[in-house]
């Protein structure tokens, strides 16, 4: 039929059916490709996140080589109320030495004043509003300045966020619930400490069997299973206590877990269920002035984790809390059943 049309030297164009078929094929191909493109973008972000953790891990080892101890959340000797997080002491080892040199280590991270002897200095609070790309997971929804000090003033967003945090220990509640090995339990057996300057000698389970840092993203807003449920706002304590990369309260505190829907604490679900317990009263009866965060990454299926030996692994959200507690504890002498 078509050949007769060509015989007359006239091109009639496409029929409606041909057009529809072509459009349908294009539609199907776009439908197939679009999720693949999105997945590739997320995979790239996850790789960048794991690279951030790798850089932090190298920095931690370099810090240990220099000072013979890991950067710690211990209160500096100067003033008892001064609190400075490991992330601040790590700055010179991730190419942020200029920022580190401006920090006044005799003042708290939230201090808005400067030493009268050097009035030209920038107050710590302003310095900690600086975003550090290595401390942020690219998959996480980060604002410019999102976390603040819960006391003595009214909470307001003043400092920049960091998405990486570690554990002080494993909550003894989990032993009563029969969810972890008794050897894993301890409030000060994690890779981070607020009372001591840990060094590699303290990791008696072996550095490769100790979880050093993992993700807790989206703070101080409360996320549960991918949904934003509470937005942090001034004049309300309904938010996760934690988020700012300079705050020692941004640590994951003790491994506690949650119910499967992330509403009730403690519980058997520990990864990607919720990014923390909403702080209702401050100081909190259980957490006191420390953080209420939980492991939470915006990567589908799990979270990136840095181990003591500097390796970065992906922890699946389905790993039992018993196995997680085995790597959170650095000195329990228990088996590492992970992998």
């Amino acid at each position: 039929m078509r050949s007769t049309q060509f015989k007359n030297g006239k091109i009639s164009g496409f029929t409606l059916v041909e057009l529809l078929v072509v459009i349908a094929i294009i539609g199907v191909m776009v439908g197939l490709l679009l999720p693949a493109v999105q997945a590739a973008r997320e995979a790239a972000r996850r790789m960048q996140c794991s690279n951030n953790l790798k850089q932090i891990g190298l920095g931690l080892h370099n810090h240990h080589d220099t000072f013979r101890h890991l950067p710690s959340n211990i209160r500096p000797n100067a003033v008892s109320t001064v609190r400075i997080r490991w992330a601040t002491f790590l700055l010179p080892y991730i190419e942020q030495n200029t920022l580190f040199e401006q920090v006044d280590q005799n003042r708290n991270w939230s201090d808005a004043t400067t030493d009268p002897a050097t009035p030209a200095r920038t107050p710590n609070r302003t310095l900690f509003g600086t975003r550090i790309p290595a401390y942020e997971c690219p998959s996480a929804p980060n604002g410019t300045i999102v976390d603040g000090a819960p006391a003595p003033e009214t909470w307001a967003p003043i400092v920049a966020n960091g998405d990486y945090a570690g554990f002080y220990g494993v909550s003894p509640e989990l032993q009563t619930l029969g969810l972890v090995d008794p050897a894993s339990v301890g409030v000060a057996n994690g890779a981070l400490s607020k009372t001591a300057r840990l060094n590699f000698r303290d990791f008696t389970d072996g550095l490769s069997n100790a979880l050093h840092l993992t993700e807790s993203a989206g703070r101080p807003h409360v996320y549960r299973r991918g949904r934003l449920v509470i937005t942090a706002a001034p004049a309300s304590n309904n938010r996760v206590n934690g988020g700012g990369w300079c705050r020692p309260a941004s640590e994951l505190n003790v491994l506690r877990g949650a119910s499967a829907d992330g509403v009730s604490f403690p519980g058997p679900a520990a990864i990607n269920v919720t990014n923390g317990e909403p702080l209702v009263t401050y100081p909190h009866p259980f957490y006191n002035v420390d953080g209420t965060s939980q492991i939470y990454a915006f990567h589908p299926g799990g979270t990136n984790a840095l181990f003591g030996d500097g390796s970065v692994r992906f922890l699946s959200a389905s790993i039992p809390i018993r196995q997680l507690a085995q790597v959170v504890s650095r000195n329990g002498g228990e088996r590492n059943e992970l992998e």
Partner: protein
Amino acid sequence: MQLSNPLPSRSVTFLAIALCILTLGCQKSEERVATFPVSGKVLKGGAPINYATIVFHPVNASDTATEKPRGITNPDGTFQLTTYDGNDGAPAGSYQVTIQQWLTEKPEEGPKNRLKEKYSDPKTSPLTATISEGSNDALTFSVD
């Protein structure tokens, strides 16, 4: 392009079988036991206590690693139990009950149990409870 021919029944059967095989493993593997709402109160010397962790240990549990119903008291001493999702209650049955109160008074020390040790272990705890099908909302536990 003729679509008027009905699909042969053989290929329909084949498609159905293929679909069944492809979706194998898609069902939820997690098995949940039916739970019933449980609430109550914890008193110490007659007064309600805040932030007491209450755990129900099944008496006839074949597997000790199963999720235990648990709850934490509010400032007025009231609690609700959670087994799988928040405040969903507990499966019916009889339980040994343990109560601990993990409070952090000094941040550098971390949480410590403020109640007597005998309430921490289901073997030594004098507290028991029976959960029946339906609503259980008048449980009161007293500790000294």
